């Protein structure tokens, strides 16, 4: 097992390197001259001084020298300063990461708790009316744009029924305890964000259980006279759920991407909204570090997924 984990870690290194390289290439492609951005437009500056500044900062060094400098600084946690807010970009990301994790984790929970049981039910009642309706619902779930769903949700639950707040993470003035108030604000955005994952988990759970029920060992269990309930609990369900680990792990980039839209619509103070705000402000250091950090988080999530999968399925860990 430790050999397997080690192999995964070694495989992740070139990808981590690739992520930083692509991020640095993009930084260099970003429009605008970093030197011009640094100087006060009100104070006139001699053209020669610009060159001196460039030299002092090492900006006239070859690409790979600059990349090495940038990478060492980034590893130390220094990813530069926001053009607009004059604070370290890492500080703003730290502030915003919490709300995004609350949102994405809740939406994943909702999609697991709702999606998987419905998918299993769909498989058990294959070709029934229920199966067809759930299949249709799953297709609708991946086809309706999340921002439309968000707007419709706000329209119905916040504006017409007035049972949920239309935006924000906490109320300014409220008698409710913090957690209750947070959950109250969280319910709508997390459900909307989780909709697509719910639909795909449902589809995968259905396919997976149908495949397992078709296996020889299930036929054997049936032949020796086991009851359906026992077949499911002892043989089928656990094996059917294993592939879903991968599906869950693969959802993370989609959730981060989705959070850009959902957080903007719901004014949720997370990294998705930060991304859009940085784009609007043309705050390139901020957006580039966001890109770097989300990519590294996705890489980590994939790594964890692989390891969890190997724990759950011995065939994987003994294969190589």
């Amino acid at each position, binding site marked *: 097992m430790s050999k397997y984990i080690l192999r995964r870690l070694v495989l992740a290194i070139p990808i981590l390197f690739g*992520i930083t390289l692509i991020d640095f290439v993009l930084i260099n492609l970003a429009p605008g001259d970093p030197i011009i951005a640094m100087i006060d437009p009100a104070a006139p500056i001699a053209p020669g001084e610009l060159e001196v500044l460039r030299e002092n900062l090492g900006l006239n060094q070859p690409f790979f020298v600059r990349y090495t400098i940038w990478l060492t600084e980034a590893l130390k946690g220094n990813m530069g300063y926001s053009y607009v807010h004059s604070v370290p970009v890492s500080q703003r990301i730290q502030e915003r990461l919490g709300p995004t994790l609350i949102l994405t984790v809740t939406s994943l929970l909702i999609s697991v708790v709702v999606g998987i049981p419905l998918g299993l039910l769909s498989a058990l009642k294959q070709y029934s009316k229920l199966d067809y309706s759930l299949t249709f619902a799953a297709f609708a779930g991946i086809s309706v744009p999340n921002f*439309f769903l968000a707007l419709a949700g706000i329209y119905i639950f916040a504006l017409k029924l007035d049972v949920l707040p239309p935006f924000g993470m906490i109320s300014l003035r409220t008698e409710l305890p913090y957690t209750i108030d947070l959950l109250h604000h969280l319910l709508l955005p997390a459900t909307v964000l989780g909709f697509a994952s719910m639909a795909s988990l449902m589809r995968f759970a259905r396919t997976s259980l149908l495949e397992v029920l078709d296996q020889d060992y299930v036929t054997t269990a049936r032949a020796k006279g086991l009851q359906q309930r026992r077949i499911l609990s002892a043989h089928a369900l656990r094996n059917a759920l294993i592939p879903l680990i991968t599906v869950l792990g693969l959802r993370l980039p989609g959730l981060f991407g989705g959070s850009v839209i959902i957080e903007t619509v719901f004014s949720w103070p997370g990294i998705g909204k930060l991304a859009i705000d940085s784009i609007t402000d043309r705050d390139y250091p901020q957006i580039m570090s966001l890109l770097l950090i989300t990519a590294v988080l996705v890489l980590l999530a994939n790594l964890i997924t692989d390891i969890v999968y190997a724990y759950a399925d011995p065939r994987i860990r003994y294969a190589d």
Partner: protein
Amino acid sequence: MNQQESAPREISKSLEAEQKQSHFFQSRFWRRYRRHRLALIGTFILLVLVGIAVFAPLITTHDPLKVNMRDTKEPPNEIYVLGTDKAGRDIWARLAFASRISLSVGVVSVSIYIVIGTLLGAIAGYYGGLTDSLIMRFTDTVMSFPGLIIIITVVSFVGPSIYNTMLVIGLLGWPGTCRLVRGQVLQLREMEFIEAARSIGSPGPRIILRHILPNVVPYLIVVATLGTASAILIEAGLSFLGLGVQPPTPSWGNMLNSARQLTLLEQFPHLWLPPGFMIAVTVLSINFIGDGLRDALDPRMTL
């Protein structure tokens, strides 16, 4: 001698061509596809949508771009079938013309990334070794960036427009296709007919193009169809955020943008319900078609 030989060949050729034409509705593909009822409904709806896009000028009475400040936010009435927007523009006309944008962004961006993904995947799978490792690590790297975040970053560099939207989705969307094609090529590479081609001295590029890729086409058709659906969703999302198709050019996504104001959202559902409905119906029908194609072309395939 020559004539005698060529005559039967001509006949069999024309027979083959005839068979191909007249037997589509009896082909195995069609028989399987027909059984997928949702796919048939999807096909029908998509044909209607393509019809709306092609004949947009004929089926609308108002100019989709013409601002009319006297008739703003009109609810649906006899003059404006679906009402007017904030600037008094006819919503039905804008919806119809927007379908041209959404469908073409979907088709163009997916065509771009299918070409990139197929070439990279085929090269990685066929040549193996270091080439394979390099290409696949590059693919993994690109896949690590959350799609929408890297797309809006690149769009912010090049500026939002229809063509940049197509290009950015096209240039960043290929990793999934690349992985799929590589997987297929790895299997095909070991088959006897490829060994035969290699043993008579066919060069690598020729084997890839003539013998391997034709066998991957069914998979590509399915991937391209489902990909078009998600490309349309991405374009709509970008335009909704103001980073895609720019007004006054109508796109379903940017028509929903005005509903971000809560007062408009509450008081004028006719502003945002129709474009949202159009996106959902379009994407849904393309997804149904993709599912039907998957069943008809290769039932073993899982995506």
